[in-house]
């Protein structure tokens, strides 16, 4: 390449910031785009911690066990070489965070402490009070600011990514973005683009996520040809509190630190929960899953809550509520371990979680699916090659993805505290890969004809113009509410094909209506309604990917649950029992049919769904999951 390379990173959560740091370390300048100052990114919401094996709790923990837990937690639906490499890299990454000054909680000896998190048996989670995500985000933000001081990073904060600019061969050569102050559209050249735009919780209306988590950016590149994988796999967090604006998460750390989930045994019990004696409380997780109790994986807990409330009619006050109780712990212990989380509950509910139980229910929390990305396998180690242009590259050449918007690592479900890790790790890998990719380019983006940039700019300006001058009747905010209601009704914790057909029909209607939207804001500055109207159109497109993937997948796997296709473990039967062996045979047959990654390709009349095999070379499934 004749000119010096440049990379654009879109998104400044931990994923995008780590990518930026790595690229700058390789002496390539970065233009960093974000909807707002990167320090305000959604990553700041993460409370619980980040997984990395240090084996400091006398439990003989091992990296191998972390790999096994991640693979099994995801019900084998993720390619395994990247999982292996991520778990191996985890201790090094967390050490680096420590060196960057993260205020990790300490043991009496002054080293980083580790706590227990759901779905695993070992203390493997490093944490900084109850604001780990905020602390990791700030550490990465500070390092990027140091790069900025050296003139190696240019920030475009309060800019919205609209699309990638593709050349005649379909290679990514830059982006189109909108200045959110004056709403003008501009194009930018780059030799590689990394998308790190986070999750898509807002497709479910309200979720545990922030306003930046619309999935719109991922949807935009999907509509431009990037394939989207495993869309139907959405994690529902079992412990969220209700709100008009969002469903605030009560961290899994609450369960890790001994929180107990229960409902009154008597339906409609109106007593103050503190007055209900032990014997009249139904600790359903402890009763149903004695080995793990309250720390069963999230999907198991969410469905159990659903069952207790919707099928057994035991919801507190007849509502969608169960209790999460920490009030048996001393106040000082709770303040030290969970202070920020419990204060948040008090702030937003007005009730005191130190003396009585909290009221919670499952909420959309994390998208395992995302932009399909590749990896280069290292045949020697069974992991992935640490630097290779294929790593985290999407199906559009030159476009990479990292963080929650990619589809790697978590398969059908994600372990708690594994996604700060995957966002960090994938940011690092994608950053390195993008530089390796630019080195192999014959022609840089400087050689790309202007017309590609001009036509993309025109296309985007036309979308804006159509919305601003529209005399339609549909309100973009009302459409979003309806989309959320539809997804929570039919594409939620429990799914069935009748409901999913209704969801698909409803989504198509919403799509038609979204073509007749009206933007109430007539201003040319900071027009948030215009920006939202654009995003809702793109969210509807991804909603269809999620619902269609779910409709087609006739099985239960990880977070995706259809009662009709559940293979029930025969009660009281274990390996060797003929009944259990019959069950195992069915489970094997189901894997042959469904252990494959869903791949969606955009088409005018809706997503085209294909499947591709999973790389199971590290640990092939031999036994079904059993949390009894």
């Amino acid at each position, binding site marked *: 390449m004749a000119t010096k390379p440049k990379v654009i990173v879109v998104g400044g959560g931990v994923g995008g910031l*780590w990518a930026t*740091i790595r690229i700058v*370390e390789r002496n390539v300048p970065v233009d960093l785009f974000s909807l*707002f*100052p990167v*320090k*305000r*990114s959604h990553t*700041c*919401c993460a409370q619980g911690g980040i997984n990395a094996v240090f084996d400091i709790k006398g439990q003989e923990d091992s990296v191998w066990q972390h790999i096994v837990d991640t693979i099994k937690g995801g019900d084998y639906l993720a390619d395994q070489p990247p999982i292996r490499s991520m778990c191996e*890299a985890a201790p*090094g990454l967390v*050490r*680096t965070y*420590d*060196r*960057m*000054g*993260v*205020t990790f*909680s*300490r043991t*009496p000896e*002054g*080293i*980083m402490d580790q706590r227990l998190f759901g779905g695993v048996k070992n203390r493997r989670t490093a944490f*900084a*009070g109850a*604001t780990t995500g*905020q*602390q990791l985000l700030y550490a990465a933000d*500070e390092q990027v*600011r*140091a790069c900025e001081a050296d003139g190696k990073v240019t920030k475009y904060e309060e800019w919205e990514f609209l699309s990638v600019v593709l050349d005649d061969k379909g290679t990514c050569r830059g982006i189109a973005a909108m200045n959110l*102050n004056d709403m003008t559209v501009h194009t930018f050249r780059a030799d590689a683009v990394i998308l790190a735009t986070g999750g898509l919780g807002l497709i479910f209306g309200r979720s545990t996520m*922030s*306003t*930046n988590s619309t999935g719109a950016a991922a949807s935009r590149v999907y509509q431009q040809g990037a394939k989207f994988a495993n869309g139907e796999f959405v994690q529902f967090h079992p412990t969220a509190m*209700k*709100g*008009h*604006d*969002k469903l*605030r998460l009560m961290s899994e750390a609450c369960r890790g630190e001994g929180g107990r989930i229960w409902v009154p045994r008597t339906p409609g019990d109106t007593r103050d929960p503190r007055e209900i004696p032990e014997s009249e409380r139904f600790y359903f997780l402890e009763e149903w899953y004695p080995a793990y109790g309250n720390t069963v994986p999230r999907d198991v807990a969410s469905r159990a809550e659903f069952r207790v409330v919707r099928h057994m009619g035991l919801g507190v006050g007849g509502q969608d509520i169960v209790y999460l109780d920490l009030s048996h712990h001393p106040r000082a212990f709770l303040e030290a371990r969970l202070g*920020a989380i419990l204060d*948040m509950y008090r*702030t*937003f509910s*007005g009730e005191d979680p130190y003396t009585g139980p909290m009221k919670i229910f499952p909420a959309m929390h994390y998208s395992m699916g995302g932009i399909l990305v590749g990896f280069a396998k290292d045949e020697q180690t069974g992991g992935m090659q640490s630097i290779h242009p294929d790593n985290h590259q999407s199906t559009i050449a030159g476009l990479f993805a990292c963080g929650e918007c990619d589809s790697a690592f978590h398969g059908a479900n994600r372990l708690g505290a594994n996604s700060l890790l995957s966002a960090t790790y994938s940011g*690092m890998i994608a950053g390195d890969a993008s530089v390796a990719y630019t080195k192999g380019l014959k022609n840089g983006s400087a050689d790309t004809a202007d017309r590609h940039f001009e036509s993309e700019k025109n296309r985007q300006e036309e979308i804006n113009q159509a919305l601003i001058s529209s005399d339609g009747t549909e*309100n973009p*905010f009302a459409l979003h509410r309806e989309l959320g209601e539809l997804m929570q009704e039919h594409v939620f914790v429990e799914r069935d094909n009748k409901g999913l057909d209704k969801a698909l029909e409803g989504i198509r209607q919403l799509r038609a209506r979204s073509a007749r939207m009206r933007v*109430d*804001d007539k*201003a040319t*500055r*900071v*027009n*948030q*309604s215009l920006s939202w109207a654009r995003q809702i159109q793109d969210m509807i497109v991804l909603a269809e990917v999620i619902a269609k993937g779910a409709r087609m997948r006739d099985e239960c796997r990880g977070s995706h649950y259809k009662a009709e296709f559940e293979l029930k473990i025969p009660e009281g039967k274990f390996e060797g029992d003929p009944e259990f062996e019959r069950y195992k045979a069915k489970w094997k047959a189901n894997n042959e049919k469904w252990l494959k990654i869903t791949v969606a390709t955009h088409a005018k009349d809706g997503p085209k769904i294909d499947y591709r095999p999973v790389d199971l070379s590290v640990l092939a499934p031999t036994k079904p999951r059993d949390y009894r």
Partner: protein
Amino acid sequence: MADREIQFNVKRQDGPEAAPYWEEFTMPYSSGHNVVSALMYLREHPCNANGETVNPVVWDCNCMEEVCGACAMLINGVPRQACAALVDDLEQPIVLEPLSKFPVVRDLVVDRQRMFDALLKIKAWVPVDGSWDIHRHAPLISPNEQSIRYLFSRCMTCGCCMEACPQFQQDSKFIGPAPFAQVRLHNSHPTGSFFNPDRLHAIMGEGGITDCGNAQNCVEVCPKDIPLTDAIAELGRQTTIQWIRDLFVR
């Protein structure tokens, strides 16, 4: 009470140069609202109290759980995060204004770039040789020291303390209280402390720590209870020692 309402009086401004004006809004009451969720209702129903359709009020927010710092504004005259301001706890009409110490971009959106510039100026980071693993942790930090550092590490650059500070003005040079917490934080890290002179020099000149008038308003309003005045007192000592050191080095 079917016709109970929530009333707002909002100070609006169409752009940085435009004149501000007040506009009243009402919406149906429902329990559990905070100022952000109410503004969300109003943007879906952009109609003022006179029944006229108007441009929806714009404001910043992201996390909606008081950790991102985006939605700080004046609520009944107090600088705070809109997401954590429960309607049931507020006197009505609820008066919303943009923070006054920063340039207004539009309505309740202000430009706080000055705060991020300050973080650059004070070198608010722990220099590392690189992001790669060096197979070592940071040096040991006692649980006690960690818990003090943790207090400072939660600053979300919201600007409430800056708003409350009488010395910090749009046209004054004073760097404001929040950056001091970050100098205090990074100076106390075992390896961050290698660069203390750089950070101290950044707050020793004009607009630096000696411009603090000790009004102590900042700690009163900080939503994260960050001990800003402790930081300022501690840095007063550190800068004095640095000043004496500089005399000898010169």
